[in-house]
């Protein structure tokens, strides 16, 4: 054994010499190691002896001192044990209380996807909406007004349309001309045209199943605090396509009149200090937020930047946040919520309400947003002899070509978007020089629209909204339509909108402060 090995195990040797004969042998032969071992052993023993003569008994006294406070500490221990268990025991009660006193919890728990949730349930939970019972029946459908809700932001009318024969591919086709409010001049004296037509701010399908189509129509806020809305559903449309995903509609008459009482609810008003969004197109300054039961309206002012080089000088932009997160729930802007300029001159956008009646400071996040560019329209003449053409547009390229099939000559317009964040808000029209010819579109070219200025209704124009484009992410869209042999020689292709998706690297957090609304 080497000295190094022996000196490293002196404690073990000291405790049990018999177990280490090699070490014993080495110590007997090595004076240096033996001296080291003696030092270690003597000092260890000196410490040990000192410790052995220490005053004992402190621990015994400790035990005797316990009974005085034992019960209390024991109770405390029991209390602590229950305290540790309390989250588990109280969790069901807390969840029940959450759902009982905080109706929004239902939506968080049930579905984080705002486009899928039923806004009716929220307003019913909060006791805001008024149940309606108006109903009328035709040979084909039963039309019901089921609920109405109103505040200083908007007026919502919920309806059901049920197919009498139980078809589940029934799709309402209610446009500006197909539903009217007969007393619109009373409800909206500043907006109504006087002929019963009222601008619908949005119409949305909520559900469509078992032959029942549920939806809501959104109007501006009513003039008075309590009004009766008198609605007349003029026509609907039935999908007669062979495949439910295709679209081929037959318009059917309804002529159903229904009325319901509406009570306008107040809104909570918030200021939005320091909420400024600067971009290439200018600066958006958010100003106020009006939180009502039907919707949340956010007003803003916009200062325009210098015209972009790829834009005509007269282009204008509209700002639409694409995503907003409120209290942990991400809300895409509903596609049917239009950006409107109110009488106060403020531009605004609308979100689904999630925090009505909170009336407390809150923060929300804005994510990506859309910019509408107008005045960027494409207007190209297509002569009879033109069989194909290409046009560059700010968002890509438009390609048209003529084709002939068994039904006759067709014109196909394909829009290929070159940039992933830019797309046309398609509402193509063809003009033959004397009348405007609307065009319906279908990505799969599943149906055609005959170009005939006399037969096609101007208001049946089908267009893809910006939100649809964002959700679809389809960057090749095809419009196909038949050409009327009796058309004039020159067609004009018009596309007036252009939308840009601005992707934000980081969400913008906006602090909202409540204040009393006068």
């Amino acid at each position, binding site marked *: 054994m080497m000295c190094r090995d022996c000196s490293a195990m002196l404690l073990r040797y000291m405790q049990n010499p018999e177990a280490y004969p090699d070490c014993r042998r080495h110590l007997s032969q090595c004076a240096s190691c033996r001296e080291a071992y003696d030092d*270690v052993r003597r*000092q260890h023993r000196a410490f040990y002896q000192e410790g052995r003569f*220490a005053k004992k*008994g*402190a621990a015994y006294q400790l035990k005797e001192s316990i009974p005085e406070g034992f019960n209390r500490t024991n109770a405390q221990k029991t209390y602590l044990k229950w305290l540790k268990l309390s989250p588990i025991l109280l969790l069901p009660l807390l969840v029940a209380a959450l759902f009982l006193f905080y109706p929004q919890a239902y939506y968080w728990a049930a579905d984080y996807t705002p486009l899928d949730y039923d806004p009716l349930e929220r307003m019913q939970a909060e006791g805001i909406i008024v149940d309606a019972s108006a109903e009328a029946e035709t040979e084909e459908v039963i039309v019901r007004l089921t609920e109405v809700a109103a505040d200083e932001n908007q007026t919502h009318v919920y309806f059901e349309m049920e197919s009498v024969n139980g078809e589940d591919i029934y799709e309402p086709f209610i446009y500006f001309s197909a539903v009217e409010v007969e007393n619109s001049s009373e409800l909206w004296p500043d907006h109504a045209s006087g002929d019963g037509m009222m601008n619908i701010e949005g119409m949305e399908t909520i559900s469509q199943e078992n032959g029942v189509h549920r939806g809501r129509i959104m109007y501006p806020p009513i003039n008075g605090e309590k009004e009766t809305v008198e609605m007349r559903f003029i026509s609907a449309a039935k999908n007669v396509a062979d495949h439910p995903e295709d679209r081929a509609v037959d318009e059917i008459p309804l002529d159903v009149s229904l009325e319901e009482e509406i009570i306008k609810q107040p809104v909570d008003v918030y200021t939005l200090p320091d909420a400024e969004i600067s971009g290439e197109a200018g600066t958006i300054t958010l100003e106020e937020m009006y939180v009502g039961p039907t919707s949340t309206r956010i007003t803003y002012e916009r200062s325009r930047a210098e015209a972009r080089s790829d834009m005509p000088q007269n282009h204008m932009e509209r700002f639409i946040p694409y995503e907003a997160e409120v209290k942990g729930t991400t809300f895409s802007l509903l596609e049917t919520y239009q950006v409107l300029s109110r009488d106060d001159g403020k531009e605004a956008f609308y979100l689904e309400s999630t925090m009505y009646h909170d009336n407390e400071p809150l923060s929300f996040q804005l994510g990506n947003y859309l910019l509408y560019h107008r005045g960027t329209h494409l207007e190209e003449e297509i002569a009879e002899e033109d069989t194909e053409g290409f046009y560059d547009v700010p968002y890509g390229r438009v390609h048209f070509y003529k084709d002939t099939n068994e039904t006759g000559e067709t014109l196909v317009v394909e829009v290929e978007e070159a940039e992933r964040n830019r797309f046309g808000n398609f509402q193509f029209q063809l003009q033959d020089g004397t009348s405007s010819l609307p065009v319906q579109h279908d990505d799969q070219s599943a149906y055609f629209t005959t170009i005939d200025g006399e037969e096609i209704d101007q208001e049946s124009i089908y267009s893809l909204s910006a939100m649809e484009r964002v959700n679809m992410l389809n960057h090749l869209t095809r419009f196909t339509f038949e050409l009327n042999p009796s058309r004039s020689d020159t067609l004009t292709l018009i596309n007036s909108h252009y939308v840009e998706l601005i992707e934000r690297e980081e969400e913008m957090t906006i602090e909202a402060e409540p204040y009393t609304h006068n």
Partner: protein
Amino acid sequence: MSQTLDGSMKPLAEWAEVQDDRIAAAAVAYGVEETLDELLKTWMHQAFQADLSSDLKLWDLLFTLFEQENIHPEEGERRKLNVLEPEAKRAVAAYSYAELPLPFTAQLIQSGETETETRIIQSLQYIRTCFPED
């Protein structure tokens, strides 16, 4: 050495009673034998609050309390411990004074058994070098 705690203070006191000789000896090493009563109450309270349930944790808390007293006795053999680093002092106090087994001492200073043995040996030799006349 093992002692199961059942959530009350009594088993803690019983554990300390079993360890009485060792605790008293360790207290001598740190010069805290006069205040050991109070220290043990503090120890028991803290051990109870922290719900300590192993010998190692109980001893570690005890040595920590002793070390926090920051007493450096100048009489007796224990005065020689003052030349050591705190960790080495804890190892020698545990092994030589409190007679805690070497493996347990190694855990107390969070070191390997071989390294701990070497450290104690070197510490004892260093003390002999510092105090050759004794």
